[in-house]
């Protein structure tokens, strides 16, 4: 019985030492054999167990030492390959020590995992469309909304939804839970697919607008939206006109004449122009995003950019048409009413323009408001002169000058290199982020593929023969530093925009001027700018050619420096 047990243990111990020998690093395997050869000489169960446990400790120690040593060797070179001999006998072998490669990859991954860098890479590489319903954040919001039923989540989903009926339904659900969200559902966003849908949308929008006007009676914007529904019918019934703008400043065009005959539209627009406030609810939209970010930690710059920059604005053709009617319906070319009545109309237009300029949150609102104000001043100034109100006329003249200067400033800002949306700083950042993101992903994939290939190949010098191993050895040396470089570029390029973006979420009460809203939207959409350039204008081949040449020459310079410097370090 004892012999049977002894035999059993002997076979277990033999298996144990053979496993130790098998797992022992090749370069010191003789010591494993030396250790194993002693076991058959050991008598007694406890003694052999102790010997075996010592062997496990030895194996662990040797494996660890082997690992540390391997860090100093380039990828693909085994412990038994003398580096110098391999380099001499091969066309090319990797020369970067594993520890350097590991550190480069580790540092790159740490940067890639940084939230700012993840955002920019995701924007470039993962996001396929500017449709929020395809975004993962949208689905996260949907899940949270289903779990919590939070009105704020429903409200945000409503703003992000592209489907008119879903948008309206989500808005209604949010309003039912929290009536203060009534500002959500005042307008449908997307054109109706059919006349029936259009009728339904008009009806629903009219009802929602009535509620909104009751809730926010002093605001011009809901009234403008209500008037737009009527204006659509006016446009449909009018003969085609080339432009709504002031191409014929002193007389009404056919559309304006048709509109001027529509008393319901006139009354609604009159209410809008007389309303003491102008608010497109931009600050409420941003506050909604901020609230959700702080409560649910869902803070996606794309969502913010979409909601803040993509909010509904009044239809400016509607506004311009009414302003033109007011300014010129009493002109000599109009119906010939009194100067006092014409002046009252012009004052009304000017005051509306001033409110719009003061409370508008977008550049286009600024421009439209200034243009209307200029027209109103030009109309008002001679009327005031004519009626002897010289002081008032001088003030209006000053207002006209102020408007001209404001418009000039906007124009020069848009033309300047820094602010131009197509070739300014933002576009350069977007371009840099795109190039760096694609280069980072390509370098990461190439590094991992080359390392995987070397990990799989047998340890023999023959493996370095042929084109593919030579290519892989180049990739193992070049791709990790390139990956780190591109990760750093990604971080540095997007960081200022990310900080700007975060400042709107960290501030207690962020400033909401036209400039700050533009800044926030720009910070949120920075990674998207390059495709927008391509979409908006023909590809600038000279520019892309110069860029490609610069990149190619830089890579060549890096390669030549590497060839000159690196072998001396390793040989």
């Amino acid at each position, binding site marked *: 019985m004892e012999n049977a047990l002894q035999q059993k243990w002997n076979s277990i111990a033999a298996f144990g030492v053979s496993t130790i020998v098998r797992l022992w690093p090749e370069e010191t395997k003789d010591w494993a054999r*030396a250790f194993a*050869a002693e076991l058959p000489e050991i008598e007694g169960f406890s003694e052999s167990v102790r010997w075996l446990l010592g062997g496990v400790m030895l194996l662990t120690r040797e494996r660890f030492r082997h690992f540390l040593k391997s860090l100093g060797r380039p990828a693909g070179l085994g412990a038994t390959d003398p580096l110098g001999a391999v380099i001499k006998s091969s066309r090319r072998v990797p020369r970067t020590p594993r520890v350097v490669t590991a550190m480069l990859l580790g540092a790159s991954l740490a940067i890639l995992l940084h939230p700012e860098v993840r955002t920019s890479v995701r924007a470039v590489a993962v996001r396929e469309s500017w449709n929020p319903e395809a975004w993962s954040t949208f689905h996260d919001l949907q899940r949270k909304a289903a779990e919590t039923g939070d009105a704020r989540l429903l409200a945000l989903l409503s703003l992000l939804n592209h489907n008119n009926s879903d948008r309206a339904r989500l808005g209604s659900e949010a309003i039912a839970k929290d009536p203060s969200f009534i500002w959500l559902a005042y307008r449908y966003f997307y054109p109706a697919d059919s006349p029936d849908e259009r009728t339904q949308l008009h009806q629903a929008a009219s009802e929602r607008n009535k509620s909104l006007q009751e809730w926010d009676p002093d605001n011009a914007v809901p009234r403008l939206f209500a008037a737009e529904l009527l204006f659509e019918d006016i446009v449909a019934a009018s003969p085609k006109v080339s432009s709504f703008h002031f191409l014929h400043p002193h007389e009404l065009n056919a559309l304006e004449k048709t509109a001027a005959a529509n008393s319901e539209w006139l009354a609604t627009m009159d209410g809008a122009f007389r309303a003491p406030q102008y608010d497109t609810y931009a600050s409420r939209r941003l506050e909604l995003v901020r609230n959700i970010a702080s409560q649910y930690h869902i803070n996606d710059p794309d969502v913010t950019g979409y909601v803040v920059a993509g909010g509904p604005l009044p239809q400016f053709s509607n506004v311009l048409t009414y302003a033109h009617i007011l300014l010129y319906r009493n002109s000599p070319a109009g119906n010939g009413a009194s100067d006092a009545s014409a002046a009252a109309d012009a004052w009304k237009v000017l005051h509306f323009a001033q409110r719009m300029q003061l409370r508008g949150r977008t550049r286009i609102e600024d421009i439209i408001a200034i243009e209307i104000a200029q027209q109103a001043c030009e109309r008002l100034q001679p009327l005031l002169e004519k009626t002897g109100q010289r002081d008032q006329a001088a003030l209006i003249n000053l207002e006209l000058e102020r408007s001209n200067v404001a418009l000039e400033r906007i124009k020069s800002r848009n033309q300047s290199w820094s602010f131009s949306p197509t070739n300014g700083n933002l576009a350069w950042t977007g371009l840099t982020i795109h190039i760096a993101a694609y280069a980072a992903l390509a370098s990461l994939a190439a590094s991992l593929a080359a390392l995987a290939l070397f990990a799989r190949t047998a340890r023999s010098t023959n493996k370095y023969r042929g084109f593919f191993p030579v290519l892989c050895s180049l990739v193992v040396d070049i791709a990790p530093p390139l990956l780190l470089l591109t990760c750093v570029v990604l971080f540095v390029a997007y960081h200022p925009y990310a900080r700007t973006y975060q400042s709107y979420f960290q501030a207690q009460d962020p400033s909401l001027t036209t400039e700050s809203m533009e800044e926030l939207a720009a910070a949120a959409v920075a990674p998207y700018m390059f495709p927008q350039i391509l979409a908006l204008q023909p590809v600038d081949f000279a520019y892309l050619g110069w860029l490609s040449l610069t990149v190619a020459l830089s890579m060549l310079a890096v390669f030549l420096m590497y060839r000159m410097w690196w072998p001396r370090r390793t040989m």
Partner: protein
Amino acid sequence: MGVRLRVSPQTLNLLAALLARPAQWHHGYALSQVTGIASGTLYPILMRLEKLRWLETRWEQPGKAGRPPRHLYRLTSGARVWAREELADARTRKVWKPAASEA
């Protein structure tokens, strides 16, 4: 010799055991038994001594069939001088005491 060996009490015990019969070849298990050093500690010391070329090694052909060849160890002549100096020094500094049989 350029490279210093960290002379621990276990190393001193091993050197003493190897110096006891300096010309004779020793088996690993026998050294472990004489010095009381466990295999997990003994072999790293042997490996270091061998790397410093203070230890001669050779393979012994197995006496019994089916047994693997065993590894044998002894100090090189240069290492014997060094080992005696180290043991004397350790004894003087009272950091190491020889086993009763050696004393």
